[in-house]
C-alpha cells in the first residue's frame, strides 16, 4: 500500500493532473493516511492525516482489490466500499489513478 502511494502519487509532477487544483486525503484502514496536494500538475505527497478538500476512505482489502484490478474504483464507490467526503469533483479527477495499469 505504502509503495502504491509513494510510487504512483509520490512524483513531483504529472501532466494528468494538469486541470486539477486541491488537496486530497486518502485514509486506508489498517495502513495509514496520505495527504496529496495538487496544483495544476505539481504534486506534493505527505504521510499525514491533516484535513483536505476531498477525503477518500477504504479498507486495506478493498483498496488492494481495486489496485490489483479485482474491483473497479467507481463500482466500489457506488457499492459503498469507497467513501468520499468533501469535494466530489476532485475525486473524479483521481479515480483513474486507482486502476490497474498493464
Amino acid at each position, binding site marked *: 500500500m505504502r509503495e502504491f502511494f509513494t510510487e504512483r502519487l509520490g512524483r513531483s509532477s504529472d501532466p494528468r493532473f*494538469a486541470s486539477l487544483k486541491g488537496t486530497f486525503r486518502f485514509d486506508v484502514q489498517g495502513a495509514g493516511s496520505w495527504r496529496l496536494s495538487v496544483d495544476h500538475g505539481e504534486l506534493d505527497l505527505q504521510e499525514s492525516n491533516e484535513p483536505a478538500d476531498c477525503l477518500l476512505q477504504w479498507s486495506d482489502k478493498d483498496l488492494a482489490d481495486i489496485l490489483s*484490478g479485482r474491483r*473497479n474504483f467507481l463500482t466500489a*464507490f*457506488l457499492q*459503498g466500499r469507497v*467513501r468520499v467526503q468533501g469535494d*466530489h469533483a476532485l475525486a*473524479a479527477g483521481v479515480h483513474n489513478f486507482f*486502476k490497474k495499469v498493464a
Partner: protein
Amino acid sequence: MSTSETVSILEGETFVVSSRTGDLEGSPTNTHGLFHQDTRYLSRWILTINGTAPGTLSIDNLRYFASRFFLAPGTASIYVNSKLSVIRTRAAGSGFHEDLTVMNYDTEPAEITLRIDLAADFADLFEIKDHQPKKGGHYHRIEKRGLILGYRRENFVRETLITATEPCELAPDHLLFRFRLAPGAEWSTCIDVAIAVDAWGASSEKPKYAHGDLDARPAGKTLKDWMQTAPALVTSHSSLTRTYERSITDLAALRFFPAFAAGGALPAAGLPWFMATFGRDSVITSLQSLPFEPELAAATLKVLGNLQGQVVDDFREEEPGKIAHEMRWGELTAFEERPQSPYFGGHDSTALYLILLDEYERWTGDRALVRSLEHRARAALSWLDRFGDSDQDGYLEYERKNTQSGLENQCWKDSWDSIVFADGKIAPAPRATCEIQGYVYDAKKRCARLAREVWYDPELAQELEAQARDLKVRFNRDFWVKKGGYFALALDGQKRQVDALSSNIGHLLWSGIADEEKARSCVRHLMSPELFSGWGVRTLATGMGSYNPIGYHVGTVWPHDNSLIAWGLRRYGYREEAARVALGMLEAADYFEGRLPEAFAGYPREMTQYPVEYPTACSPQAWATGTPLLLLRTLLGLDALGEHLIVDPAIPDAIGRVELLGVPGRWGRADAFGRGLIQLSPMKKAA
C-alpha cells in the same frame, strides 16, 4: 412538462414522475416514482380521503421542479358535488417536499381520514422495464424523526426518510392523518421525503426545498441569468422566436451537475430518463450550442476528460484514450450487472470529443483549458490509430466485446438493425460506418491546428495532416458506391460496401472528407424525394429494403442529424439546400410548440401535412434541443476566424430578417444580422 398521462418535475439528479393526481403508482413496468441517481426511492405514494381517491380539477406546472395539483373527491367522469377541496404542492430536489391542504366548504363539520399508501422498491432504472428480483433486502424503521424505508445489498445502502409536520400514524406502508374540519376551515401538513445514499457521507435529512419555497436554486446560473447571457434573437418570424426561447430554456433544464465529476454543468441526453452523462449526446449538444452557451462545452470537455479510458476492460469496452459513452449510478451498475461505470460502447465519441476541443478553442479562445487537456487529446488520438482501428486497415470499426449487455451498434444509429445493405440485409460485424471515418478526418485536421497553434508541436501537426490527407484519398476510393453515386453506409466485416443510401452521407459534408465532385452527387441524393421528406432528411432512403417511415433509424427524420447535415451543406457552399433543410426543421418545430422531438416519422410532407411524432420516452431531448441553435448558426453563416466573428447569411425569404445580438466568443460579444434573400424553388415530388 406534463403530458396527458404523466406529470414530471426534476431538479439536479432528482426527478418525480406521477399521475395527474400526483400519485405514484410505480410497478416493475410502470415508470412512476421518485428517482435519484438512477434509483427509485419511492415507488408508491397514493392519496385517499375517507377511502376515496380524489380526481384532478387542474394542474399548475409552477416551475420545472414543482407542480401543484388541485383535487376533489370524485373523478373527472363522475360528477360529485364535493364540498372538500385538496391542494397538493410538490417540489423535487434531493427527494421532494409536499404541502397538503384540505378545505371544507360545507356548512357541516367534516371528519377526515387522509391516508397515503407508500412503498419504496429501490429499483434501478434498468430494472423497471425488465423486472428482475432484487438481490438485497428491504427494511424499515419507525423512529422518532419519521419512517425510514431502506434497502441493503452488502455495503450498498439506500434509504428514504419520510416525515410530516402534523401528527400521523406511521406504518411501513402508509401514513394516516385523522382530523375534524369545521365549516370553512382548512387543514395543512408538510411532508418531507428525503433520500440518503450511505456512501456519500453528506446525505441530508431534508429535501432541497421547504414549505412555500418555490424560488429555484440551481447549482449553476438561475434561469433568468441563463436567458440573459444567451444572445438575443430579433426576427420578423414570430414562431422562430418561440422555438429559440424554448431551446434556450430547455437547455437550462437539461443542465446536469454530475455529483462525481469536475467542471460544472454539461448537457444531459434527455429528460427525465437520460439525466446522465453521455459521451456522444453531450458532445454534439455542446457543439450545437457553442455560439450560445459555451460553458456547456467547457464542462463536457472536463467531465469526459476525467472519465477517459485508461485500461483494456472488455466488460465496459474501455480502452486507453477512449471517451466514455454513458455513466450510470444504480444498483445494477454498482454490482457490474450492467457496464455503465462508465460504459465505453461509442466508437465515435473520441473523435467527436477532439472536434469539440478544437471548435471550443476556435470559438472561445480559452487556451488554458485546451492546454490542460493536451494529454487527454494525445491519448484520444492514440486510441483512434490503435484500438479504434483494431485490424489496422486504416478505418475505425467496431464489434462489441461485451456480448451480454454491450451495444451491437456503437455509432449514433445504435439500434441493432440500423446498419443494413440496400437490400435490407444486416451487415455483419465488425462495422466501419462512414460518418465515423469523417469524424476521424476532421478530428485529425483540427488537432493538427491545435498542435501547431496551442501545443507548439509542429511535428505532430504535420503527421496528423499527412494522416488526414491519406485517409481522405482512401475513403473516397473505398466507400464510394459507383453505381449509386453516394458513399456507402459502412464497410462490413468482410470489407464489403454496405450500400444503403442513408443520411450518414450528410455527416461527411460536415466533416469535409468528401471530394467536391462526390459531395455534389451526395447533395443531389440528400435533396431527392428518396431522402428528403419535405421536413428533413430521412435516416434511410425510401426504396431501401429496410426502409420504414417509423423505423427508429431506418426511415425516421432526426432533427440533430439534419442540423449537422445543414452545417455540412453550408461547408461545401450549398446555401440554398442548407436553407431548405433548416426551414423544413424550423417549420416542423412549429407543430411541436417549438420543442423538436428526438425523431419524427419519415412520411412525405405532402402526405401527412404535419410531422408525425415518433413516440420517445424523453422530452426534451438534448440534441433535438440544440438543433434550432445550430440551424441559426448555419442560416447566419456564423464562424470564428482569428479574433473575429464571421457572418455570411443564407436565409430563406420565408424566414425574413434574423438578428442575433450579443453572440459570445473570443471577440467578447458581437452582433450578427441577416435578411431572407434565398427564394427556395419548388421541391421535386416523390415518384
